[in-house]
């Protein structure tokens, strides 16, 4: 555990799956040198196998104080090869050749976009942006036999020392979110760095800053006026993803509300389209209370009453979403 912890809250009710965060991250950090297949930040459609494929079944995390075994995702089958496309034939030559990947693709970072689950008229899906959770109890750090992974005291950011890493990939297997990637060209493992060079200058992470939906809040957990403390501790509407993995993640999600399902006669049932059970699987038992609070506050706001929670989630001022400077007088 670090002296301070920087965290993120992602409001899934505002995520439109536009992948601006994905590209903001990719163009900044992972567009070269064997990282082409890596998405330190990506947005997957839930329900779905996600990225890497079936990451929720790949093991890792903690079983009490013991690391649970995990497996290594495969490049073509689980991540997806970064395919080249027939741009020349499709765009610059005469004819009807459609734009197609040149390599046979088996998977990719957004492979199941908008597929979701359920039958018409009760189909449902939502978007789940995912990045390294900069966990308080990181399994990756514990799994490394070389102590190549460390958690920074001043902000809890988890980093891989590229000088120490020898590409053993125990961290990749140990991370239950499969958010550490092995760079086969460099022979070392790499991961989201929570944009620490930006953070150190008081600039928010690229994924958060570029989010067009104003879905991402960034703050230190101990900053009582910050969104993390307010949404996680006070309002309890932001929940960790798969807390049962035991790593104590520091990216939190405001769970998605959904419209009513329809019965056989086409009448609204009053039950949410996204089954509560499914949300409990992802976000734990606190999801019921979180959704109830959200509904209650939305109703207040729609009646013209005050709702500090809604004001925070709406984020009238973009700058208010990011609280990177340290509170007066505190030292890391």
């Amino acid at each position, binding site marked *: 555990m670090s002296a301070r912890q920087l965290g993120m809250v992602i409001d899934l009710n505002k995520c439109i799956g536009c992948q601006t965060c994905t590209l903001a991250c990719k163009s900044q950090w992972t567009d070269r040198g*064997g990282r082409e*297949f890596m998405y330190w930040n990506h947005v997957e459609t839930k329900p779905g196998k996600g990225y890497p494929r079936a990451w929720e079944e790949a093991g890792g995390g903690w079983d009490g104080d013991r690391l649970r075994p995990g*497996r*290594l*995702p*495969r*490049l*073509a089958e689980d*991540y997806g*090869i970064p395919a080249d496309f027939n741009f020349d034939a499709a765009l610059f030559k005469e004819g009807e050749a459609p734009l197609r990947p040149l390599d046979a693709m088996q998977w990719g970072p957004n492979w199941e976009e908008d597929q979701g689950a359920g039958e018409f008229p009760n189909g449902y899906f939502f978007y789940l942006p995912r990045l390294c959770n900069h966990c308080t109890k990181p399994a990756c750090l514990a799994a490394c*036999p*070389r*102590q190549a992974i460390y958690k920074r005291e001043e902000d809890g950011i988890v980093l891989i020392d590229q000088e*120490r890493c*020898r*590409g*053993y*990939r*125990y961290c*990749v297997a140990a991370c239950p979110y499969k958010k550490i*990637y*092995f760079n*086969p*060209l460099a*022979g070392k493992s790499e991961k989201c760095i929570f944009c620490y060079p930006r953070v150190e200058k008081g600039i928010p992470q690229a994924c958060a800053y570029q989010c067009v939906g104003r879905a991402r809040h960034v703050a230190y957990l101990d900053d009582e006026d910050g969104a993390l403390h307010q949404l996680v501790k006070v309002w309890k509407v932001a929940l960790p993803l798969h807390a049962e993995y035991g790593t104590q993640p520091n990216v939190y999600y405001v769970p998605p509300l959904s419209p009513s399902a329809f019965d056989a006669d086409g009448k609204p049932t009053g039950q949410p389209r996204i089954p509560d059970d499914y949300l409990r699987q992802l976000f734990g038992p606190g999801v019921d209370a979180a959704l109830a609070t959200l509904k209650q506050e939305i109703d207040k706001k729609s009646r013209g009453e005050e709702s500090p929670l809604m004001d925070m989630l709406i984020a009238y001022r973009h700058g208010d979403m990011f609280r990177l400077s340290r509170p007066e007088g505190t030292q890391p």
Partner: protein
Amino acid sequence: MRPALLGLLLLFAAPAWSAPPPERIIRVAEMHGLPPLDPVAAAWAKAPAVTLQLHPQSTVAGGPGGATLPVEARILRGGGQLAVRLAWADTGENLLDARATDRFADAVAVQFAPVGATLPYIGMGEPKKPVRLWLWRAGGKPERLTATGFGSLSKQGGAPPEAQSRRTAAGWEVVLRGKPDVPFTALAFAAWDGAEDGRAGRKRLSAWQALIKPGGRLPAGLREEARPGGDAARGERLYAELGCAACHGPQAGLAPDLTNAGNIHWPGYLRRAIREPAAFLVPGYAAIMPAFSLRPEEIENLAAYLMKPSP
């Protein structure tokens, strides 16, 4: 001299230290000029072949388990360089692959023990007794490395060794050639099998092998290290009385598993570890072993028991 007669002579004439287990000695052949890099070069016939048993690493978590791996080693020296030729059976060829995230390469390493009063800990050295290493990974560039214990492997400056490998139907033949950067007395070997996700401690390793010139004897500095110890049967009883296996048994997890300690350790290390357990701790284990007040012969007996050949 007929072998039987030689044996009889040794039995009566030689002090105990002159007869360490035969696999703990590796003879180097001297030659004019540089030894060959090519594993099939004729010059290799001049180097005596010794078959070493590489044992699954079982001191820290993550070992491969399974059978021992016989590796044939030959060593040539000339032109200021040392060349080591290693050959072992391996069913599948596993190369470093820039298009795979889940595969590991076959690999082999030579570990050098710098000249010193005692040998460094076989598991990649100790904080004050570094080892030097050459590492070859199939499909990669050989590396020159140094280490002071598990998890401490780091790059060592200077020219890396050269390597040439040959994949046969049976397995690998690899030659590593370079200039050891410190005077050394012994070598040890380790091999990783990509097919079983070999990397880090998921390897098989040999005990230290004293490097000896043709016709030479064990250097004086290593005689105490090699001295066999006392009465193994008494040592076994003492091991049970003291309850050593409670921590050092195969599944205990509190201290290195010593079931097959004799496969990879020399008697000198075991004596030191019993006498002064806190002097060097294998990384990952706590300093929980008391310094037992044992008589010198009891320590000898325990060492003799631990050195027993594995079943």
